[in-house]
């Protein structure tokens, strides 16, 4: 691994390179694509929660004005299921039989000349069901249960003995509810066939997977699927799977021979593209009177769909959070008649951290100890399961710096002891860590005759600022100004990239781009290796460094030659090189690769009579390794903070008893925070360059959300003396 000279920890907050395109409406989102002859597809969804379709009558729908085709399981033909992924199996192939696995399952698709005509035709499809009782409860004995579904269960030391001998014990249960991702951009697929090639414009966070899954569905080679998604209107995880509607849009395009556009309606967004599944967690903590953890036992039962194994490791958060010799974590998945869940910002971690950090607060109160002190005392200075040093860790620094910025010392320990303006005031905190994740990634870098560069990789921009930081990293590796670099993303024909998920994109694509740029520097030195006219003749890549559009000798910076001059003299329009980055294992590194760490501090104000809760302040101190762009990084954290406030106080996908129909599937009824609910949000970065990848970054896409819910729950306890052990915390629970 070669590293370039290190820029400072926090990089310049340059404006988003795609900002002007976005604010002027010129950035093409999936919804913006239209093709001659395009028709519109609208879904029909099951109104039974479980059972079978007994009859399906499309006569009226087919006669409805403008209708081109109506697809059901009777005429869809065989479609294969997509591949296994690190996030679980692909969703079941759509319209394959008469089985109903959940309310809202897609049972038909109406295709018509206009969206309105397709909508009307969809209403006209008549479906009869043989209902069976839907299995909806986590504890329903009929639910299929999988233990250790992700192989992450941890066993360290002897927990039963340690718990039995602990001087102080906490044993509490915490409940979390279904949340729905709801990116602003409704998921959209525009599909068309050009001969045997399927071209899709799609809301995806993973263009490479999209290609593989659609190829599998239609039994065509992967090269015959072209996914184009240069901009996606948010995801929060919703774009991490290749959903049934994507396959159906492609099927409809094949059946009708026309380009097909399918836009999920907002209510459909609640059943068709995943959600954070509900769960129940029991946390047992044992400690000495001095506050040293002696045992942690964390058990989580999380919902999934009947035919799904959604990746949601929750209890495993506790395997690495604190230095503790005796640890058990157990994850259990209960399969219910619910829509297929999916990663939602901070999957597993946000919920697991919620339970653990609430339990830590409860432990602090049982010990009569400052909750901050308890965290500091149990800091995991080394990676607890292996004893390896972390590739970087500034967790203590985050906690301490946060306490200072927040004014934690002003907090009086007793619950209900702080008041202002007739309101109860509470301070709460949570310590957070985000698991490290990185996947293999490729990129290609090109420098053109005019000295500008183009770097690309099949990763996707979902509003996270990917274009901007990747331009910055590439510009740095090539010694160019960011304005001279264009980055290409979101096209499956570009070099393979993993998902925009797991807080891994900058690390993956950034490292691959870095390697490609390094290789490109090598290609330039190769080009001039025997070039008598070049001052760099005989240099290897290691002998030069890029700066100001040129390569210069490390041993003599006055000796340099520009990319333009080299290309011109060699009559080359451009020069390209490929790069690939493969994450190193802990063994190879001799270190435990670390994800981000952080500390969340929250102040709440609670109306003692009406129970209204307001978050008055929220502070995040984040160790995200090297921060490439101060501004986009801050935006990630404040966006996550808003999501975390939503999870803590507002968001709940409510479903009907008996059927599982989602009872609040609109943005009017599914409550997310509005501006007036969001306080001043302070963000500070701490720590150092991470040693696990060449660009020094750690993922920060999700850690912004993690920890808000427990910090708020703990602050509500501090304000009111009421320990609410379920989310969301609403005013009716405080009356």
């Amino acid at each position, binding site marked *: 691994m070669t590293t370039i000279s290190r820029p400072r920890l926090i990089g310049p907050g340059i404006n988003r390179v795609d900002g002007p395109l976005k604010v002027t409406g010129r950035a093409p989102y999936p919804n913006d694509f239209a093709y001659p002859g395009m028709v519109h597809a609208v879904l029909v969804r099951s109104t039974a929660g479980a059972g079978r379709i007994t009859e399906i009558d499309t006569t009226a729908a087919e006669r409805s*004005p403008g209708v081109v085709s109506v697809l059901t399981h009777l005429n869809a033909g065989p479609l294969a299921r997509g591949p296994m992924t690190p996030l679980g199996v692909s969703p079941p192939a759509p319209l394959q039989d008469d089985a109903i696995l959940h309310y809202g399952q897609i049972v038909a698709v109406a295709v018509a000349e206009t969206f309105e005509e397709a909508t009307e035709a969809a209403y006209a499809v008549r479906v009869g069901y043989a209902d069976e009782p839907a299995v909806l409860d986590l504890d329903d004995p009929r639910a299929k249960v999988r233990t250790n579904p992700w192989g992450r269960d941890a066993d360290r030391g002897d927990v039963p003995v340690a718990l039995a001998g602990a001087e102080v014990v906490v044993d509490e249960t915490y409940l979390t509810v279904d949340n729905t991702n709801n990116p602003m951009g409704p998921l959209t697929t525009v599909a068309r066939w050009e001969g045997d090639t399927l071209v899709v414009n799609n809301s995806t966070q993973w263009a490479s997977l999209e290609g593989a899954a659609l190829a599998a569905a239609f039994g065509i080679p992967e090269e015959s699927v072209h996914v184009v998604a240069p901009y996606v209107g948010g995801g929060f995880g919703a774009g991490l799977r290749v959903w049934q509607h994507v396959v159906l849009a492609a099927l409809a395009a094949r059946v009708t021979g026309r380009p097909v556009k399918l836009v999920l309606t907002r209510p459909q967004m609640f059943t068709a593209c995943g959600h954070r599944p509900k769960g129940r967690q029991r946390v047992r903590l044992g400690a000495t009177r001095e506050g040293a953890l002696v045992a942690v036992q964390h058990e989580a039962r999380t919902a999934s769909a009947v035919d799904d194994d959604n990746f949601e490791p929750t209890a495993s958060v506790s395997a690495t959070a604190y230095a503790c010799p005796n640890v058990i974590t157990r994850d259990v998945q209960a399969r219910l008649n619910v829509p297929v869940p999916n990663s939602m910002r901070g999957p597993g971690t946000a919920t697991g951290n919620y339970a653990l950090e609430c339990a830590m607060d409860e432990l602090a109160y049982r010990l009569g100890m400052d909750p901050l002190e308890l965290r500091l005392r149990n800091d995991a200075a080394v990676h607890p399961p292996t004893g390896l040093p972390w590739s970087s860790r500034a967790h203590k620094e985050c906690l301490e710096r946060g306490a200072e910025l927040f004014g934690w010392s002003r907090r009086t320990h007793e619950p209900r002891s702080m008041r202002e303006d007739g309101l109860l005031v509470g301070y709460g905190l949570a310590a957070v860590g985000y698991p490290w994740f990185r996947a293999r990634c490729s990129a290609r870098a090109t420098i053109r005759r005019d000295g500008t560069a183009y770097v690309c990789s099949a990763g996707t921009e979902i509003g996270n600022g990917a274009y901007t930081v990747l331009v910055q990293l590439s510009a740095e590796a090539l010694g160019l100004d960011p304005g001279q670099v264009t980055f290409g993303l979101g096209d499956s024909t570009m070099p393979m990239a993993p998902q925009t998920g797991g807080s891994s994109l900058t690390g993956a694509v950034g490292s691959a781009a870095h390697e490609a740029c390094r290789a490109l520097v090598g290609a330039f030195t190769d080009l001039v290796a025997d070039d008598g006219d070049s001052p760099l003749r005989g240099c290897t890549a290691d002998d030069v460094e890029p700066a100001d559009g040129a390569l210069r000798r490390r041993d003599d910076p006055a000796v340099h030659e520009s990319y333009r001059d080299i290309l011109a003299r060699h009559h080359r329009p451009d020069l390209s090189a490929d790069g690939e980055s493969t994450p190193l294992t802990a063994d190879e590194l001799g270190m435990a690769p670390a994800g981000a760490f952080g500390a969340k501090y929250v102040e709440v104000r609670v109306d003692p009579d009406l129970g209204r809760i307001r978050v008055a302040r929220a502070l995040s101190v984040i160790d995200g390794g090297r921060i490439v762009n101060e501004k986009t990084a801050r935006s990630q954290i404040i966006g996550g903070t808003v999501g975390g406030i939503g999870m803590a106080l507002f968001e709940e996908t409510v479903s009907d008893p008996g059927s599982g129909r989602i009872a609040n599937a609109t943005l009017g009824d599914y409550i997310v925070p*509005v501006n007036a*609910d969001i306080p001043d949000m302070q963000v500070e970065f701490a720590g150092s360059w991470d040693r696990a990848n060449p660009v020094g970054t750690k993922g920060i896409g999700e850690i912004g959300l993690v920890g808000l819910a427990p910090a708020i729950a703990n602050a509500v306890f501090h304000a009111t003396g009421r320990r609410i052990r379920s989310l969301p915390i609403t*005013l009716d629970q405080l009356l």
Partner: protein
Amino acid sequence: MRPFTYVRAHEVGTALAEAEADSRADFLAGGTTQLDLMKDGVLRPDRLIDITRLPLHGIEERQGALIVGALVTMEELAADPVAGRRLPLVREALLRSASVQLRNMATIGGNLLQRTRCRYFRDPTVAACNKRDRGSGCAAVHGSHRTHAVLGTSEHCIATHASDVAVTLVALDAVVHISGAAGDRKVPLTGFYRTPGDTPDVENDLRPGELIAAVEIPLLPEGARSDYLKVRDRSSYEFALASAAVAVGLGADRRIEWARVGLGGVATVPWRAVEAEAVLTGSPADGEVFASAAAAAVAGAEPRPQNAFKVDLAQRTLVRTLQTVTGAGS
């Protein structure tokens, strides 16, 4: 969406004639309820009669009352100086409603006639909704009903009337001016709405084809104290879990000379709490009186498992509002 005929009326008479000629016609004002429900397939009129060009846009002060044309927008009424001075609770209720974008479109007439937010009513794939389809049942009773009503309910319907401003208007004894092909009439707002009983589809006194032309709002006497308090899960852009509209006259001895109380978010119609008014009238402004007034207001409540908290919340909301307007009892 299925095709429908759109006509725009410029005179009240034409609008009424259009409506009389087609029993499957609906009026269109700001459209913020009507169009949503059409898109969701709940309302399926054959004809939409756009009434926004009718000359019903004025706000006029006449004989101690404000006559508000049915097409005055929520934002216009909120900005009206007389309303601001003499009906501050109306203004407050309007400004706590919806969003400014919606208030710029939505009309006062439409607001009074807005349909419930019950998700079973608004989702035609749910068969059981007596309000949509009399006799089909009520899915909310055994379904998700945290936001549903506890006052004025029946086993056939527990849908909440969601208007904020209407709560203040029933408290203020506003009168609805109605125009119909058969003539004009006036109905006090307290008698305008119908609790569901066994006909939840009948929501008010309006006869087929009739229009609301205006609302007459008696101004509060000088020196009256009033407020509207809206309690909800988030700070803005949400319907009330509970709300209270209060106006009182306070004597020199700090006795309550008269009181008007409305409750919102908890009832099937904008709720006039006459029982609370009876407790308050002639009583000293203190915490005990407020508590018994609040208890009287919800005495007839029929809570269900998920909305039982509203009985408590409504009382706390009313007590807080009484405290605010009287400056006593906290």
